[in-house]
């Protein structure tokens, strides 16, 4: 099965590999079929868009790109994955008392972000240069738990970032980037412990790397 997958060891945006050659999908033969079905679906074609309107799409796509720093192909299809979740009401169920349920909260908050953007760019968020999009997001985050268009900014951020992270870090390309092997049944792990690796795990080539904090 894996031999037929066209690209090997893909990372989002083809970032330089901290785990050279590490390819989660190369091990897909070792996964149980139920898990393989669920995970491989993420690298296959996405279902048609159903939830977001084109106007919302124009705001959501660049917003996800910003949150996840995805500015070039290959992209994890975060926007498509979130659209699917919302269309299927695969939400976490709960919502804050001062926010509506997730689908409506998405609609409201994307509209609000676009409204903010219009003060800087005539055609809204989608037309803003990257720096402006960044500063809009920063200004929004600086609000902390203050109110933003009638909603608590931190709760809107929680909504956006939870959906974004769930989509991105469920994708095998993102796992390639972070050295996480993904599904582990029925194989399991035989070498736990500090600096211990399985034959299919790759050592972090961390030398080039510096503390972002």
């Amino acid at each position, binding site marked *: 099965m894996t031999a037929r997958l066209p690209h090997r060891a893909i990372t989002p945006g083809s*970032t330089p590999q*901290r785990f050279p050659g590490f390819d989660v999908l190369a091990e897909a033969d070792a996964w*149980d079929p*139920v*898990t393989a079905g*669920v*995970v491989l679906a993420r690298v296959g074609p996405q279902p048609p868009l159903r939830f977001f309107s084109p106007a919302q799409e124009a705001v959501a796509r660049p917003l996800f790109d*910003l*949150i*996840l*720093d995805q500015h070039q192909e290959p992209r994890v299809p975060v926007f498509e994955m979130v659209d699917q979740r919302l269309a299927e009401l*695969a*939400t*976490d*169920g*709960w*919502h*804050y*008392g*001062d926010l509506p*349920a997730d689908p409506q909260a998405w609609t409201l908050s994307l509209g609000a972000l676009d409204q903010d953007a219009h003060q800087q760019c005539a055609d809204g968020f989608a037309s803003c240069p990257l720096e402006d999009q*960044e500063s809009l*997001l920063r200004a929004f*985050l600086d609000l902390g738990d203050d109110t933003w268009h009638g909603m608590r900014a931190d709760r809107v*951020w*929680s909504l956006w*970032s*939870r959906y*974004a*992270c*769930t989509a991105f*870090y*469920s994708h095998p390309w*993102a*796992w390639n*980037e*972070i*050295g*996480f092997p*993904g*599904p*582990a*049944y*029925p*194989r*399991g*792990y035989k*070498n*736990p*412990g*500090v*600096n*211990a*690796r399985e034959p299919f795990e790759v*050592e*972090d080539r961390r030398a080039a*790397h510096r*503390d*972002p*904090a």
Partner: protein
Amino acid sequence: MRTLFRDGSADRVRSRNESAWLLPAGQGRANEELRATMRTFEDRDDVDAVIVGCGAGGATMAQRLARAGWRVAALDAGPFWDPERDWVSDEAGSHHLYWTEPRVITGSDPVPLGSNNSGRGVGGSMVHYAGYTPRFHPSDFETHTRDGVGADWPIGYPDLKPFYEAIEGELPVSGQDWPWGDPHRYPHTPHPVSGNGQMFQRGADRLGIVTRVGPVAITNGRFGHRQHCIYRGFCLQGCKVNAKASPLITHIPDALAHGAEIRPDSMVTSVEVDPRTGRATGVRYVRHGVERFQRAAHVIVAGYSIETPRLLLHSTSRRFPDGLANDFDLVGRYLMVQGAPQTGGRFADEVRMYKAPPPEVSSEEFYETDPAAPYKRGFSIQTVSPLPITWSEHFAGQGIWGPELRERMRDYVHWACLGALCEFLPLPDNRVTLADETDRHGMPVAEFSYSQCDNDRALMKAAQQVMEQILQAAGAEHVTTFHRYAHLVGGARMGTDEHTGVVDRDCRSFAVPNLLITDGSVLPTQGAANPALTIMSVAARAADRLIHHSTSTPPAHPTVWREHVRDSR
């Protein structure tokens, strides 16, 4: 393999609960035949007990009552899982395990629910719990007397101790000898420790903080037909191996073999009461879109701390206009979560915390009230090993995004992570009420309001400090703490009388003699321990009392069913 069994050998467990031997020995994880030949009741049959919810409390009850010859129908809103077919070794793909029906969260410190708190389906939240199974300490049962906070239980630790021992044998629990609370041993020896546990041990050793491996409800070695853990780290996604205990494999099989019916996909919407006798008559429920009514001599509610109060509040009648058993406005109140901050430490070494069950090593050094501290009660510390999605959400929750988020995540294999459980106090206004919003059954959804008190906040701070010190002592280059909550208990607590509790010491409601509640909602306090073992033990005790000390008609149905099932196996 060493001789593993101490308290109650495997044979002794088998003689009182055969579940592990009823599972398939080879391929497959669910005993198809036992399910296919399951006894079934008609709605009009007056079963001895109908149980609402097949989780920790409900399933334990079902197994105990069925073994005693009771005719039991146990209903659950969710599916009857087959671990092989229905669960995946994947974080995002496990969304269906959680209770994701609508709920509203409010208060000054609202508690996110969903994956973090409650499950749906046979096995309940233990299907995707981590697997830690510590006992409560003796002090937990009398925090009011000892510390002037919280509440005293109407039972004490000695009342529960034999049930702790019994359930520890049935799960079974693995761990080192336990020095805290009431010192005790575990039936299975401890598991080997992975990178995350090693970092915890290293840091704690350097600071002189005592740690222990365990206690986890993960078999170490074969137990019945259950397999050994393969250290794959997906405990919170449901154990496809049948190594981690949940009632689906530890109590349901034995209940089936003794003639209980497990009725999945059945959402109970109300408990009905006969206005003349004041007794419960059965439950109204929706199955496959059809509303039905199951008659029963006893109604046992075990839907957990949010759904149990919601169901009671929604079960109104002329006798109970404000909700069943809610004469004194106690239903839904004193609901607790534990403060569960997680501290990550990034190391130059590779830790790869996903390569083991997240529950490995714990410390209860800070569990009891420290007279020198400015707060009462305490916290425990345990390894937790978040998978990538949860880990990235932690960073995002700190306002980290873009290139910095990606960079932090590229360090994923270098992080170790500890979690604390802080004993938040039971407060009357932390509660479930009914919201205006309704679910797809037209039933009002739960609104769960939570606000911390000063003691809660002080504990969170203290726990954060200790965890950061431990990881720094272990050599972390960088530490950071994420604020979150875990576990739910309370909401229909036990008390000495109807002014202090919804149910009595035996989990019987004060208001309706044949209505019991046997889930996490009856706990008056929560200690700094994970609750599942205690919930199961309280349910096992309630079953014992019901069977042996029942004042209502004890059912006298012989266990013929069992022989039938044995023959057909």
